[in-house]
C-alpha cells in the first residue's frame, strides 16, 4: 500500500505541475502590472524555482500536515473547502451503500433459492437492465420523473436553506434531498451484488454440508438463513471495499445531476474554473479512499477466508 501511495503521489504531483497556473496565477490576476523582476522574486520566495524533488518534498510535507494549499478561486485553504463538503458526499455514499444492500440482498436470496422460477427470471431481467443502464441517464430520468413531473422531491441542493441547522426539520430536509440521488445510485449498483449473491447461493446449496444439515432435519428456511446465507455473504462482504471506487466515480455524476454540494460537484466546478490546487487535493483524497477500499477488501477477504491469509 505504501509504495502504491508513493507512486500515486508522484503521479499527481507531476499532473499538478503539468496543469496550467500555479500559486501565483491568482495574485497575478489581481495585480496585472507586476513586472518580470518582482515576479521572479516572488516565485523564488514561494519556492517555485527549486528543483522538482525539493518542491515534491515540500508538497508531501504539507500534505502530511493537512495543508493542501490555497484555492485560487475561493481564496480559502483547500482543506476548509473540502471539509465543508466531504460530509455530504460521505452521507450520500453511505446512503447508496445501505440502500443498495437492502435491495440487492433479498433479491439475490430469492433468485438463488428459487432458481428458474418466475421471480428469479424477473430478477435476472432486472439485473440485465440495471447492469446496462448508465448511471447518468438513469439519474436524469429519475430526476425528471420524480423531481419535475411528479414534483415529489426537491431537484437540487442538499438541504433547504430556510431551516435551522441541527433541528429535526433540518435532518428531515436533508433526508428529503438525499432520497433521489441515493435511490438512483443504489439501483444502478445493485446488479453486481445480486449476481454474486445469486451465483454464490446456487453454488453453495449443492455442497455436502448443506446436505448434512438437511439430513439432520434442519428445516428448509433455517438451512438457507443459517447455513447457506452465511457462507454466501462472505464474498459480498469482501466486495464492500471495492464498492468505494465505484462510489467515487458515481458521486461525480450524481452530484452534478442533482446539484448536490459534495466533493464530486466541487471537483467538476474546480476543474471548469481551473482551480487546480483543489483538483489535485481531490484526486489525492479519492486515490487514498480507493486504496483504503482495496485494502479493506483484502483484509475482509483474508479475515473471512483462511485460505488466503498471509501469516
Amino acid at each position, binding site marked *: 500500500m505504501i509504495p502504491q501511495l508513493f507512486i500515486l503521489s508522484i503521479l499527481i504531483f507531476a*499532473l499538478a505541475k503539468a496543469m496550467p497556473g500555479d500559486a501565483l496565477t491568482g495574485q497575478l490576476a489581481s495585480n496585472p502590472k507586476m513586472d518580470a523582476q518582482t515576479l521572479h522574486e516572488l516565485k523564488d520566495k514561494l519556492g517555485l524555482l527549486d528543483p522538482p524533488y525539493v518542491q515534491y518534498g515540500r508538497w508531501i510535507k504539507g500534505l502530511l500536515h493537512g495543508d493542501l494549499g490555497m484555492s485560487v478561486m475561493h481564496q480559502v485553504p483547500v482543506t476548509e473547502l473540502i471539509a465543508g463538503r466531504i460530509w455530504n458526499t460521505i452521507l450520500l455514499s453511505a446512503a447508496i451503500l445501505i440502500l443498495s444492500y437492502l435491495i440487492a440482498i433479498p433479491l439475490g436470496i430469492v433468485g438463488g433459492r428459487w432458481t428458474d422460477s418466475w421471480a428469479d427470471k424477473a430478477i435476472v431481467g432486472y439485473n440485465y*437492465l440495471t447492469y446496462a443502464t448508465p448511471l447518468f*441517464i438513469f439519474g436524469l430520468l429519475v430526476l425528471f420523473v420524480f423531481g419535475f413531473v411528479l414534483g415529489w422531491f426537491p431537484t437540487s441542493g442538499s438541504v433547504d436553506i430556510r431551516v435551522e441547522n441541527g433541528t429535526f426539520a433540518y435532518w428531515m430536509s436533508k433526508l428529503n434531498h438525499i432520497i433521489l440521488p441515493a435511490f438512483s445510485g443504489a439501483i444502478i449498483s445493485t446488479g453486481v451484488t445480486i449476481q454474486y449473491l445469486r451465483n454464490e447461493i446456487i453454488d453453495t446449496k449443492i455442497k455436502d454440508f448443506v446436505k448434512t444439515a438437511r439430513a439432520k432435519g434442519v428445516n428448509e428456511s433455517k438451512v438457507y438463513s443459517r447455513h447457506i446465507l452465511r457462507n454466501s455473504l462472505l464474498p459480498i462482504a469482501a466486495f464492500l471495499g471495492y464498492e468505494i471506487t465505484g462510489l467515487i466515480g458515481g458521486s461525480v455524476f450524481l452530484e452534478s445531476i442533482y446539484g448536490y454540494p459534495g466533493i464530486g460537484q466541487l471537483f467538476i466546478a474546480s476543474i471548469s474554473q481551473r482551480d487546480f490546487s483543489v483538483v489535485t487535493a481531490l484526486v489525492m483524497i479519492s486515490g487514498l479512499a480507493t486504496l483504503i477500499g482495496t485494502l479493506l477488501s483484502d483484509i475482509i477477504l483474508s479475515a473471512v477466508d483462511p485460505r488466503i491469509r498471509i501469516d
Partner: protein
Amino acid sequence: MKAEAINPTEVKVKKAKKISALSIMMREIVKDKLALFSLILLAVILIIVYGAALLLDQDKIVTVDLLSIYSPPSAEHLLGTDYGGRDILGQLIIGAKNSFTIGLCITLLTGIIGLCVGLCAGYFGGKVDNIIMRIIDFIIILPTLMLIIVFVTIAPKYNVYTFVLIMSAFYWTGKARLIRSKTLAERELDYVQASKTLGTPNWKIIFREVLPNLSSIIIVNLTLNLAGNIGIESGLTYLGFGLPESTPSLGTLVSYASNPDVLQNKWWIWLPASILILVMMLCINFIGQALKRAADARQRLG
C-alpha cells in the same frame, strides 16, 4: 451435478468439430429471441445512423438559426431544435454515429493492448508477469474517472484521438488481467508443451495456437466492453469532458438537460438521445450475454 455437466460438453465437442465458433455464436443468438431481436434492432439503428450520416449535411445542422430557437417537434424539425435553433434529429444521428465509432475505437484499442500484454504476461510468466501485474494493480486502484477528466483538461491540442488514447490508457487493464489468467491456464495444457518440444517459436505458439482458443472469451469481453465504453464516453461528454465540441456525441445532447428549464419543459432535446444510448447499450449487452453462453458449452440453450 458434475457428471451431468461434463457429459454434454464432451458430446458437444465431438459434434462441434465441423462447426466453427462463429456458427455456434450465431446459433445461440437465434435461439435466444431477445438477443436476436437486439441484434436486428441494433443493425437497423446502425444502418439508419451511418446511412443518414452520409446523406446529412453536417454544416447545415450546426448552423445557428435564430428564428427557430427551442421549437418543439414539427414537420420541419421532426424532433424540434435546441437553444441555437439547430435540428435535434440531425444532431442525434451525427451524435449516435460519433458515440458508436468512438466506443468501437476505444474497445478495439484496449482490446489490442490488453491482448498483447495479457498474452505475454500469462505465457512467459515469471519476471515479465510480475512486473506487468504490478503495473496493472497500480492502474486499477487509481480514481479513474477523475484522472481521465484531469487528463482531458490539461491535454494540449485536445481532439478525438487524444480522447481515445486517454480512455484506452486506463481501460485496458481489466482485459489484460482476464486474458492473462486464461493464458496461464492454457500454457499448462499438453498441446502447448508438445508444440514447444517440436521447436515452434514462442510467438507462433502464442498467436497461432493459444490465441484461437481464447477467441470466444475475447469476443464476449469486447462486446460487453463496447456497451460500457459507449456509456462512459457519453457520460464524460455529458459532464463536458468527453468529445470536443466539434464532434458532437449523444452525451452532448443529454448535457443540455443540465439546464433545469430544458430538463423540465423541453424533453425533445435530451430524451431521444438518452433513450438511444439506453437502447444501444441494452442491445449490445443482450447480444453479449448470448455470446457469453455460446462461449461456455454448459450454458448453451441449443
